[in-house]
Every structure is written in C-alpha cells, then in structure tokens.
C-alpha cells in the first residue's frame, strides 16, 4: 500500500514545498501588512497539505484530517488577531506599510 502512495506523497510534498517557498517569498518582498498576512496564510496551508499528505501515506488519514481541522481552527484565530493588529496599525499610521514601524531600534 505504501508503495502505491509514495509517488502521491512526493507530489504533495513538492506542492507543500512550493507553498512554503511562495509564502516566504511573499513575506520577504512585500511591505504591505495584508500581503504579509497572506504570506503567513500560505505557509500554514503548506503545513496542512504536508500533514494530510503524510497521513495518507501512512494510511492514517483520520488522525491527519482531525489534526488538519484543528489546525485550520487555530489558524483562523491567529489570523483574526493578526488582522486586528493590522486594523490598529492602519488607524495609527494611516497606511498598511510595515516600514512605517521603525521606532523601536537599538
């Protein structure tokens, strides 16, 4: 069974790696806070895909799916708090530019 699943696993991990790369790239190149949050989202989507792919390859899809659903719930909470921070940032600086936040250094 594992042998049949393995090519699938490689493909899934390839896409997970692609998502990780896009997420990190997105976070590195953008100054817009909303795009940074989209980068975080892409990264967690990659993690969910990797979890489900591993669960499928192990023949333990139930565990993987329950973990993935728990993670989706958590991630929504995290992103909601992050968006709250972005709203506050917009109120305080009038823009969503990360580079406006340069007061703390040293």
């Amino acid at each position, binding site marked *: 069974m594992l042998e049949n699943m393995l090519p699938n696993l490689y493909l899934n991990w390839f896409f997970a790696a692609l998502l*990780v790369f896009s997420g990190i790239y997105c976070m590195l190149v953008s100054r817009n*806070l909303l795009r940074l949050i989209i980068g*975080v989202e892409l990264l967690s989507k990659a993690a969910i895909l990797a*979890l489900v792919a591993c669960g499928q390859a192990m023949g333990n899809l139930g565990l993987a799916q329950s973990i993935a659903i728990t993670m989706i719930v958590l991630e929504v909470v995290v992103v909601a708090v992050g968006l709250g*921070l972005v709203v506050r*940032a917009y109120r305080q600086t009038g823009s969503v530019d*990360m580079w406006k936040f340069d007061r703390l250094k040293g």
Partner: protein
Amino acid sequence: MVTSLPYFAFIAVPALAALACPFAARIKPRYADILANTALAVGLLTALSFIPEIAKPLTLQAWNMGTGLSVFNNDVFSLLMLITVYMVALCTAFYSIFHEMPDGRRGVWNALILVCAAAMCGVAAARDFFTLYVFVEVTAVASYALIAFEDRRESTEGALKYFFLTAPASTFIVLGVALLMLYTGGTSFGHLAQAMSSSGAGDSAVAIILGVMACGFMVKAGLVPFHGWTPDAYQSAPAPVSALLSGVVTKAAGVYALIRIALALRVIYPAHAANAVGQALMFFGALSIVIGALGAVYQRDFKRMLAFSSISQVGYIVLAAGAGTPLALAGALFHLFNHATFKTALFLNSAAVEKQTGTTDMRKLGGLEARMPWTALTSNIAILSTAGIPPLSGFWSKLIIIVALWKAGLQSYAAIAIFASVLTLAYFILMQSRVFFGKTPEHLAKVSEARAGMLLPPILLAAVMIAIGFYFPLLFSNLVEPAAKAFL
C-alpha cells in the same frame, strides 16, 4: 504508586475564570482583579502542594517510554513548569491591580492573562507534539493581544513584529510534526522515542524531524539568529506583560519543547551528545549567551537592556539542554526557574520606575536609590542573582551548568559560559550605576517610592532568590539530584 497531577483542573480553572472575568468586570471593574488573583493563587498553592508527592519518591520518568498510553506528563519538569507559570502569572496579575488602565478594559486584561496561564499549563501537560503546538499557539495569540493592549504605536509595532516572526515559526513546528507522523504514524513523544530507538528511521531522518521543529521553537524562545522580535516586543509591551513574556511565555512556548527534545535525544544517545540537533542547540545557546550579553551593554533603555539579558539567560538554559547530560538537564531546569524569578522581579521594578519617573530611558534616570530604596534593593538582589554572585540562586544554577558542561568534555562551551557571566555583571553594573546609583538629577528630586502593593511581588521574589541560595544544599539533595538521576 504515581500521584497524577490534576492537569484538567490546572487548565480549566484559569480558563473558566477567564470566561467569567469580563462579566465580573461589568459588575465592578475590581472584581476582575480579585477573580484573576484568586484563581492564580489557588493554582500556585495547589501546584506547590504537589512538590512532596512528585519530587520525593523518584516517580519522575524522563521520557515514559513504556507508558505511552498515559495522557499527561507526571515528572518534576512539568511540575516545575506549572509552579513557574502560576508564580509569574500571579505576580503579573497582582501587579496589574496597580497598573493604570481604563476601568472598562480590566476584565479583558485579566481574562487574557488567565488564558495565557491556562495555555501554558496545557503546554506543561502535553505529551504530544501537536497538543504542544495547539497550546503554544493559544499562548501566542493571548500574548499578541497583551503586547498591543495599550493603544500606542510602539506597542502595535512590537506586537506586529512578534506576530510576523512567530507565526511562520509555528508552521515549521507543524511541518516537523508532519514529518514525525510520516516516519512513526503518530505525533506523541512516545512515538518519537520509538522511532529513535528502533532502526526504522535513520539518524538523519530523526535529525531532520527534530531540526525542523527545533527551528520553530527557537524562534519562539527568542534565541539569537531568530531574536529579532524579542527586544522590540519586551520594550513596547505594557510593563507587567514584559514580565510575563520574559518570565514564562518564551519558556513555555519555546524552551520547554527544546528541553523535551533534548530529553528525547538523551534517551537515544545516552553515551554522548554528538548528534546534530544537540550540537545545534548548544551552538545557538552559546551564540545567544554572547550576543545577548554584548547587545545588552549598548542599550540605553532599561526594559530593552533587560530584554537582551533575557536572550542571554535563555541561551544558558538551551546550552545546558543541548549538552544533554543528566546534570546539565537538571541545571537547565533549575536555571529556567531562577530566570523566571529574577527577570520577573526586574521587569516589575522597571515598571515601577517607569510609573514613578515617566521614562525608562537610562540617560534620563539616575540616583534613584535615595528616592526608591525598596525598588533599588530588590533590583540589586535580582541583578546579583542573574550575574551569578555566590549566595544567591543564580550562582548555583550557573555553577551546575558550567560544571556539567566541563564534565561532559565541552570545555570551550564552559569557558564561554564563564566569560559571558562576567559580561552579565558588566552590563548590570552599567545599569545599576545609570538607574539607581549616583547623584539624583534635579528633575527626579520629587520622585517617590512606588506603592506598597507594587513592591510586594519583587520583594517576595527576592526572598525566593535568597532562600533558594541559602537552602541550596537541601534543595540539591531533594530536587536536583533526583532529577539528574531520573534522567539517566
């Protein structure tokens, strides 16, 4: 017969109190304070009452390989974590009674502190990497909100930096969990131990799994290559929150898991620590010690200097954990507890200084010893303890760590630890002379001592430091030695 720690109560009581807090605050804002303090005090006393049962009869197991079915941890490490969490959270909640904020927000403030405490108890209870991740995320969410609690631009900046650095870190933790599941079919600590002891997964696979996870946890712990968020978040957070963050949040979210990973390595490679992950932990720990201490020397802000000092001290804990001998692990746990006491006291004192003088900029401070004698006294005790001056608690934990490193044949790391402890003294002497000693400048001539209630937590913590220092031989034979033996 193993007494089980009532984790459900430890998690549920603060969580339910957090639910009740906003409603209590609606009746009267002070009820929220009373509720939070009561819940945390009861939790601390309960946790303390378990010391004789858990610690004495050597029931602690380092990794519980045989009992994979048991749901929660039952060792000294988890108990120590619970005590630390409740102690620091209680100090924070008690201190925030005197922290000025709009009355309408007291309920939310206390609820967030309680949620944070409950989640950190969950971290101590977890026997499963995914459960650990869930509670780490809950802790993180509560801390984002706490850092940005005051409507200031700096606070938003600190919280955003914390958010954007630690949210990807959680992703890496989950990727590590996924890999672990791929190799072992499960996510619990027991599965990891099985994978490592059987020949199913090779050493390199174990190293990759643990390496990916350790990267995530190192960001959360604020170790050096990943420390970008730490000073900003600590500096910009409301002062009691800085104490909570430095005292327990980084430890529960990062260091705890790193020590668990080190314990796993200890079971698998008992003879020596020559595995990649242990080496990496030691390297980054030593790097944090040195760069944190060097960074602290150049700081002009009181809280920012304390933040760099935190990075340096967390480095000690991780360095010892990476070394992985029983004595080093015991030293890591001991230093974890000690760091919580002295850094909480220092951050709360910095809050008192900020409240009475209106600034934490060390260029504008000076000569506060005459004006705020108790704050100065407790700060000095905490500073000396951090720097490792003999009778105080910090000396013993650093001594254990250095001796353990030396005995493990890691003389160069031991030398770094000794050298950096001199640096610690250097930056703390700078801080003392700038904030507390010297002539009082004119604009500070009318500063008065903080209120008695604000002084109480630092005084109690200073008493704990002195007591641990003097009763250390007793503590060593009853707690540290059994812990070290149990890790064998």
